[in-house]
């Protein structure tokens, strides 16, 4: 422990050198912009700026590039809250309650809570990274296909709690998402499924075009049919800050989101998106007022926004202590290190002490910088809402199209977004909740792949999910959750048709 503190102190002496501070600031600034602007994601931001770092040393390069990555997670919630357009895939779920808060005139509070939650989660993740990274990373490696399958089963069970509408409607949307997730090359046999001879559909339907279409565009299309007042919300500065009550509602979700996000983040794979969904479902499950979710619950912003930042810090654990990429972004960072002559592997910590601890310390500094960057901008961002709808909405549609095109430079993605916009409109009209659809789409390809990989490993024997300790543990949690809901069902002795009818009536 003492050695760790000494190393960290040494790291700060590296990170606080003026030029390193400057590059951390530059990375955080670019990251914030990348996060706020829909379309240009952290992945393209980092790879475009990679050649710029060729003139720097390895420490400066990784400090700056990583700043872009975790900085973008701060900004991703901004457009979700203000315009219901997810800036990053991990901010999809923030659209629901974040935007509902904005509609109640609490946009400033939502942005503040998202920024503070991100800061807490980022710093908490770093503390964990500093103290227990190596043993944790070894556990992450044991997360093979069977464990992943079990985690996703858990995710699917949580799904039922996700929605603000009835269970049947939720499951219907989830199934639709799972079906959309089937599109693309079958990774095991090479067959194209439902691709209609479009090579672009070979990798399946992207999450960003679907989420932007369903949430952003669908919302805009639905607006003219509602009664819109010409009145524009223009909150005073004092009203932009969260109230004491809102802070109180945010504290525990931030804490839980930080822990959950970090734990899920260290698992290799695209887990950071799932972490925000799981956090949302968890908060709704344990909330005393689950009916508030979807109508601007503070916990629905605080939890997921902390979780996705915790996950992005967690993703550094396997990268730094084992040299394995947890996703495309850490893969680019490893590539950047290698170009600078630093091989990322298990010996990174011992062979490149300055770089490792300097990097870790720079992230502490970077998180403070990001908070300082983001909080004053809340006022600026909120004033976007003062633009009358007639001018704002065409602009948003333009941002949606440009943003979606930018992700893969694919016109097919733009069409997917437009079609999803129409579907989103219809879903709103018939009061379906699109969130389970997006989660289904996220889960389907990973679930299918890890299930089939597991069965390859076990020669088709399903027992593989029960004889590996982590998988077994997750399966037990699933069983307990199912058992609990069944139990409460029996105890209440309520016919499910009655309950459904009541819920449906409540919605109409």
């Amino acid at each position: 422990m003492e050695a760790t503190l000494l190393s960290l102190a040494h790291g700060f002496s590296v990170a606080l050198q003026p030029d390193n501070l400057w590059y951390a600031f530059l990375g955080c600034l670019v990251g914030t912009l990348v996060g706020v602007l829909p379309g240009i994601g952290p992945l393209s931001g980092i790879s475009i700026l990679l050649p710029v770092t060729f003139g720097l040393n390895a420490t400066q390069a990784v400090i700056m590039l990583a700043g872009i990555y975790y900085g973008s997670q701060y900004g991703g919630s901004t457009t979700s809250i203000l315009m219901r357009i997810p800036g990053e895939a991990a901010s999809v779920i923030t659209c629901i309650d974040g935007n509902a808060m904005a509609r109640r005139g609490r946009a400033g509070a939502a942005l503040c809570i998202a920024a503070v939650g991100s800061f807490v989660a980022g710093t908490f993740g770093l503390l964990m990274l500093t103290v227990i990274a190596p043993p944790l990373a070894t556990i992450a490696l044991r997360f093979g296909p069977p464990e992943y399958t079990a985690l996703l089963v858990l995710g699917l069970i949580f799904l039922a709690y996700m929605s603000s509408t009835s269970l049947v409607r939720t499951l219907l949307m989830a199934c639709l998402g799972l079906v959309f997730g089937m599109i693309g090359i079958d990774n095991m046999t090479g067959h194209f499924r439902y691709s209609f001879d479009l090579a672009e559909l070979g990798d399946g339907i992207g999450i960003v075009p679907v989420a932007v279409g369903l949430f952003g565009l669908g919302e805009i299309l639905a607006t003219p049919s509602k009664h819109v007042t010409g009145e524009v919300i223009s909150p005073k500065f004092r009203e932009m800050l969260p109230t004491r009550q809102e802070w109180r509602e945010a504290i525990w979700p931030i804490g839980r989101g930080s822990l959950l996000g970090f734990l899920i983040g260290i698992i290799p794979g695209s887990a950071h998106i799932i972490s925000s969904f799981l956090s949302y479902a968890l908060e709704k499950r344990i909330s005393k007022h689950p009916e508030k979710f979807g109508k601007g619950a503070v916990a629905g912003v605080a939890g997921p926004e902390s979780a996705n930042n915790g996950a992005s810090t967690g993703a550094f654990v396997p990268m730094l202590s084992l040299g394995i990429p947890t996703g495309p972004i850490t893969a680019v960072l490893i590539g950047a290190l290698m170009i600078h002559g630093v091989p990322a592997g298990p010996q990174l910590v011992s062979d490149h002490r300055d770089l490792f601890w300097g990097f870790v310390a720079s992230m502490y500094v970077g998180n403070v910088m990001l908070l300082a960057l983001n909080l004053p901008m809340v006022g600026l961002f909120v004033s976007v809402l003062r633009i009358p709808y007639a001018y704002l909405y065409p602009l948003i549609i333009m941002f949606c199209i440009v943003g979606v095109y930018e992700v893969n430079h694919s016109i097919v993605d733009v069409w997917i977004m437009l079609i999803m916009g129409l579907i989103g409109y219809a879903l709103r009209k018939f009061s379906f909740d699109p969130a389970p659809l997006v989660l289904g789409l996220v889960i389907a390809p990973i679930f299918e792949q890890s299930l089939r990989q597991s069965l390859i490993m076990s020669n088709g024997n399903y027992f593989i999910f029960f004889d590996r300790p982590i998988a077994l543990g997750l399966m037990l949690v699933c069983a307990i959750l199912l058992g609990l809901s069944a139990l409460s069902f029996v105890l209440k002795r309520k016919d499910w048709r009655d309950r459904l009818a009541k819920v449906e009536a409540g919605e109409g």
Partner: protein
Amino acid sequence: MDRRHFVAGSAAAAAALTVRPSFGQDAYPSHAITFINPFPPGGAADVVGRPLTAALEPIIKQPCVIETKAGAAGQVGGQVAASAKPDGYTLLIHIVSISGFAEVDKLFGRTPKFTRADFIPIARLTAGPMVLVVNDQQPYKNIKELVEDAKKNPDKLIFSSSGLYGALHLPTALFMKAAGIKMKHLPTNGGGPALTAILGNNAQVLVSSIAAASAQVKAGKLKALACFGNKRAAAMPDVPTLKESGYDVEFSLWVGVFAPKGTPAPIVKTLGDNIKKAADTDQFKTAIKNLGDEVAYLDSAGFAKFWDEDAKRVEAAVQSIGRVQG
């Protein structure tokens, strides 16, 4: 602005627009050149392409932009480049697996989206032999022991790869065919996940690029048993080649630059000359050396000859895999 001015102005603007291309042909390149990277950032085409474009810009005196068009294991970017205007402003950076797509499509009775004939090879930039690694929980000290064990227990060992018919699957298939063994395939969706699978002992064998595996080999987490080059790799001089061990297999992961078919010969020459200069800069060489790869420049003619031979290996590998029963 009255109407007449407006009309005149538009006409002038339109004229300027139509004149520009013929203008451009006189002095290639007159504007930015786009390099299509068909893989997600961080892949071999990307990490080699970034230092190349950085070195090329001051030589060719025009911006060189990498545009990522990832999808379907490199097929989407290939298709985009194949159908791009052959004017020398849209080029493709691709890797060894480019030769396999048409063969795979044939296997499934599909019309190929593009074939090798749709491209003019301009330059090969790097080529590094593949290396066969096992994780530290396996008892094998050399490739012979692995083969013997796999012969006794077919389908016991599992190998991971970056995806079906991908750059890591193809050499493994060639090796299994030459050694007469069977192992189970655990496809993942990238080089990173394939490495994670073997480190976590969810797979035991992996054929990887030296660049991706060397740090793990140095740390003792992975053991390198054989290398797929025709001579031992500079980065791993102790690892014997498969040929030394008696298996006639050779496979390297190379990265090259292509232009769409129909690109005028003078433009191909200008590009080739300038890329040669860029590949010769210390800046590029250092970056590639740090990646653990080797600069293996071949000019257009040399690359074309090499590509013909290499494509035969890739096609043989695709055929030995055949259609996978799901």
